[in-house]
């Protein structure tokens, strides 16, 4: 069960022919898979494809009815390897992950798969997270397609186009015995729209059939003499077959326009953006009618040379709209036109920036620059709206980086690490990917490098001296099961590392939306969870292993100190436990509400700061950074700095109090314990107390009053 429940979305998967599907792009893909008679689906979660995994994880029933096998793979490599089932059997399979990071992890399996070739359609659905908001390095999947001879679809960002692309992807894959990658930009994945559904199809051939009559074909093995054979097959048979299929099925669109001396070649995924930009320049309408001819590449690899040449013929200049770098399509275009000896100018990077997302304004300005150079008469003078505020606001509007949620169990861990540094001086922290990556931002400033998922420990490998300083590596439970156990911990044992690795065990793959991991504590339907990270670590030979509850900062600090100073040789592994608060709240809130309604006694804590004693130094905030620990204007007319305050989102995790104690901060923190439906005796005691204390208080008050 993920952060979000997909019960409602699951129903969308049951839609039958003629009904209208209304929902997210990535869910449309999921429906399309079932409509294409897919036999198995696997993948690894990550924005923007998490929802595909999440909804299928909640759709067990439907999958059973259709006889579709689904699994949440241990990693993208596992997912890619899963496609091996389509090498020998006519099984349609689909896998999914976040690109390009996931593709990097999967590339070993992908390369071998591409070389062996497939019998059943093999589809790799990639969520491309490219752009300013992206949490991964900026790369193109296109290069993978080129190096491994995988085909790459980049459909128009409309639900119906995406659904068609899924269907055609399988067909293309079968027609050319090659795995096909279907790439969706992040906004397309989260695009809400609609399409007309068709019936789901049971896979005609299933895993069971395969196991009844196992097949093998030596020529699919990656060994000489077959490897060279496969390489030749790629170029001599599969490639031409793919090009033929793309041309015959008109996967790429040639849209005619009156201004035939110019033309625009674009990736399908950028279609809507380009059309909007043209509309702004007065060269297109709201329905896709364009004055400039367009060549829409719904398949960006392989390119169809004939179509390209045909489109370019008789044109003075072509504009290639291709996001990211290197500009593979533009380079290919030059090659095609040269071979055809066409003198058409080709522009791409130049009018467009080499790097960065093609946002609305980038597209508009790029296209305008192109037209201004080659056919200025087409442009009517534009009236620019003055964008005055930008300058004025530059200083006024503060950055708002992502951070750990309210009550996050990772916060006290990093606060403790900060306190540890106050004691023993700065340490080298090798960070990892996950929510804990945020520790590298304000207010913690922990983490010198992030090398990849589960690689936090591995990334500290070279930093092991025989001296007494030790590097600290962070690793999430997600990254740990993904590969950290071997690449990090196993490696550290084998090479007798002396460093400290902290495994953040919050019970979920939290950053990607709270999916299960093998060490998840709650019941995971159709999964075997509750595996112990500590046991796994001991299993690969770590002798110094400690588990701790991150909310207990005293204990955490003690264990951190020990880890940094112990004489014990070999890697020190700390399993830092604390359930992801986001998921915890989702789990317990309804529970508590029910109890409250049932009149049961329910106690909860709410933290607070006494404005009268807070002096507005905010060291508590610098140590914790909890979103609900904020500031408000100082009520003391003599003071200027705003005072700390706890807002209403406080979940009572207690970290601010712990911090105040552990760092010996100040006496301003308090917590109030609120009890709903208290018992009779409890109420009586309370009244007595109120009376007595109230009496004493009023006496003091009178004294004070008398003095004034």
């Amino acid at each position, binding site marked *: 069960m993920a952060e979000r429940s997909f019960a409602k979305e699951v129903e969308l998967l049951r839609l039958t022919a003629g009904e209208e599907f209304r929902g997210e792009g990535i869910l449309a893909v999921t429906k399309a898979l079932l409509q294409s008679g897919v036999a198995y689906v696997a993948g690894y979660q990550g*924005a923007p494809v998490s929802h595909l995994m999440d909804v299928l994880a909640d759709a067990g029933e439907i999958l059973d009815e259709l006889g579709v096998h689904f699994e949440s793979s241990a990693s993208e490599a596992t997912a890619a390897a899963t496609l091996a089932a389509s090498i020998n059997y006519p099984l349609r399979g689909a896998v999914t992950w976040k690109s390009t990071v996931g593709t990097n992890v999967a590339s070993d399996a992908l390369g071998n798969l591409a070389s062996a070739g497939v019998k059943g359609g093999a589809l790799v659905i990639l969520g491309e997270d490219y752009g300013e*908001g*992206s*949490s991964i390095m900026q790369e193109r999947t296109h290069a993978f397609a080129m190096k491994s001879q995988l085909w790459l679809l980049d459909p128009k960002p409309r639900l119906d186009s995406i659904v068609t692309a899924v269907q055609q992807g399988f067909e293309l894959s079968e027609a050319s015995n090659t795995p096909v990658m279907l790439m969706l930009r*992040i*906004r397309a994945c*989260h*695009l809400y729209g609609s399409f007309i559904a068709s019936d789901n199809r049971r896979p005609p051939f299933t895993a069971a059939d395969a196991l009844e009559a196992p097949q093998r074909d030596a020529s699919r093995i990656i060994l000489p003499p077959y490897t060279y054979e496969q390489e030749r097959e790629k170029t001599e048979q599969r490639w031409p077959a793919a090009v033929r299929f793309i041309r015959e099925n008109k996967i790429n669109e040639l849209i005619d326009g009156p201004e035939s001396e110019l033309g625009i070649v674009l990736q399908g995924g950028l279609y809507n*953006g380009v059309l*909007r930009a043209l*509309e702004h320049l007065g*060269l297109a*309408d*709201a*329905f*896709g009618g364009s004055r400039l001819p367009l060549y829409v590449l719904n398949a960006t690899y392989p390119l169809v040379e004939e179509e390209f040449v045909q489109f370019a013929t008789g044109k003075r200049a072509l504009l290639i709209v291709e996001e990211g770098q290197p500009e593979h399509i533009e380079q290919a275009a030059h090659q095609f036109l040269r071979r055809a000896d066409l003198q058409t100018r080709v522009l791409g990077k130049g009018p467009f920036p080499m790097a960065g997302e093609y946002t*609305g304004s980038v597209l*508009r300005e790029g296209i305008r620059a192109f037209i201004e150079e080659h056919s200025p008469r087409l442009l009517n003078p534009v009236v620019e*709206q*003055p*964008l*005055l505020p*930008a300058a004025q606001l*530059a200083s*006024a*509007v503060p950055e*708002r980086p*992502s951070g750990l949620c309210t009550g996050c169990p990772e916060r006290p861990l990093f606060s403790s690490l900060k306190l540890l540094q106050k004691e023993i001086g700065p340490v080298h922290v090798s960070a990892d990917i996950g929510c804990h990556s945020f520790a590298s931002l304000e207010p913690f400033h922990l983490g010198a490098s992030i090398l990849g998922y589960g690689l936090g420990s591995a990334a500290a490998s070279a930093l092991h001296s025989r001296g007494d300083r030790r590097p600290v590596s962070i690793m999430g439970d997600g990254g740990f099961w993904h590969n950290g156990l071997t690449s990090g911990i196993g490696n550290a044992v084998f090479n007798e590392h002396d460093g400290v690795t902290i495994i953040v065990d919050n019970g979920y793959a939290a*950053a990607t939306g709270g999916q299960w991991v093998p060490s998840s504590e709650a019941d995971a339907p159709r999964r075997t969870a509750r595996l112990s990270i500590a046991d796994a670590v001991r299993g690969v030979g770590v002798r110094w292993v400690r588990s701790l509850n991150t909310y207990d900062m005293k204990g955490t600090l003690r264990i951190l100190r020990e880890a940094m100073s112990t004489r014990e040789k070999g890697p020190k592994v700390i399993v830092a436990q604390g359930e992801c608060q986001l998921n915890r709240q989702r789990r317990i809130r309804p529970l508590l509400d029910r109890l409250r309604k049932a009149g049961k006694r329910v106690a909860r804590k709410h933290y*607070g700061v006494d404005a009268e004693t807070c*002096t507005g130094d*905010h*060291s508590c905030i610098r140590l914790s950074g909890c*979103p609900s620990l904020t500031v*408000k*204007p100082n*009520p003391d*007319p*003599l003071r*200027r700095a705003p005072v700390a305050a706890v807002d*209403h989102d406080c979940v009572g995790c207690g970290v601010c*109090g712990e911090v105040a104690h552990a760092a*010996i*901060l*100040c*006496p301003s*923190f*308090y917590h*109030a*314990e*609120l009890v709903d439906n*208290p018992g009779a005796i409890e*109420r009586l005691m309370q009244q007595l*107390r109120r009376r*007595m204390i109230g009496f004493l*208080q009023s006496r*003091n008050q009178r004294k004070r009053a*008398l*003095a*004034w």
Partner: protein
Amino acid sequence: MRVRHDTKVFKLAIAALGGQGGGVLTQWLLDAAEASGFIAQATSVPGVAQRTGATLYYLEFFPRAAAEEAGGDPVLALMPQPGDVDLVVASELMEAGRAMQRGLVTRDRTTLVASTHRVFTIGEKSALGDGLADSDTVLQVARATAKRLVALDMEALALKHRSVISSVVLGALAGAGALPFSAEACEQAIRASGRALERNFAAFEAGKARAEAAAGGDAAVASPDSASLYDPVPVPRNLKAKALMERVSKEFPGTCADLLGIGVHRLVDYQNHRYAGLYLDRLRSILGLDSPARQYTLLLETARGLALWMSYEDTARVADLKTRAARFARVNAEVGAGDGRLMRIVDYLSPRVEEICGSLPAWLGSPLMRWGFTRRIVQAFTGGRKISTDRLWGYLLMRAMARTRAWRPSSLRHREEDARIREWLATLAELAPQDYELAVEMAACQQLVKGYGETFERGLSRYRAISEALPALQTGSDPASAVRELRDAALVDEEGRKFEATLARLCENRPAA
């Protein structure tokens, strides 16, 4: 192909914070739009932004009728274009600013519906002093930039109706008539979602009403509750207090009366009348150095700082404040106790050897501090303590601590603070005649000496560093602004990197004397 220039796309951008429920709001808008005969599309970029970061949702609506009439399928964009948005919704003030920065709000067409409340960024909150961004600038720019601005504190309304901000936002949109469809359609969308209906509707209605009222202009001012804990100084009835207040009005200029009044009241409450008298005596010496021509800047700054310094936070003070009835009431209000709910207050105290010895009489405190073994004994009483202040024993314990105020004047801490205060006043008295501005800046430096434990040590050491650097700085061209610069630098980072750098620079820049 014929190009038709009759676009009827309605473009809407929602600038929000991750976790604010922008997804829910988007779904409501989509449902309402589709029910009202629009083809609706929405995109967002979740992922890490969902973890408290700034995020943007973008929606486009196209009249289904117009599409059918034209016999075409509209191509809707996935990203907003600067200068091409009809409606921008910001569920927090600075996010409105960010949207304007992106050029999404333009005079010719954009309605901006923004909540005026602030969710402070970690950068703002981390400052050692006041690091808050300037809300007024953003509001001014909004007024100047938007075709129409509807601004109100949506968070407050959400809290009032124990609902989520999304319902208030939707209400505000309906109320402002900023949507191409009816308020009923919005209500229907909420009903269809079927979650926490009563509260959501209440919040929706509240937002709607406020927006209707505010329609055209902007309503609330963008400042969180700044209600003062301290009512204006009440009229004294106690003779000694009366006498003190008379001194204030007789001996000091009227423009300073209020502030000095607060100071006197604070110190009577903190210790006693004699102590408050001392406060006025000390200020008189400063008054002699000041003049109406200078609007008594030095006197005012000193009066403010002196009141705070003389009422330094010690164990007795903290315990006293925490045991007052008013404080219990405030906590009750803050955590929403009452209505049949029991409450219990637990205070987090962590006295250090310094605090404990400091609160003891000097003759006892200082030797205890000095000798290792006695220090170790005291050590036993330090460390984190959780005290249930509204339980009898907890209360009595706290009161006992508060009682130590009786011997405060002879306590070790008092001796130390008193010495510092004298030194500070002497410096001011010495500086004022030769460099008034510098004296004012030094007076303001008191604000560095605040807080508890490490914070206090840090502030004090930086204050000391500045005082020690004075002779050096005075040989410089503009010592006053040098001190101001140092004071600001002292509040930049905990480690004091900025402060050290600034100090080094300012001290070497001076001409060799």
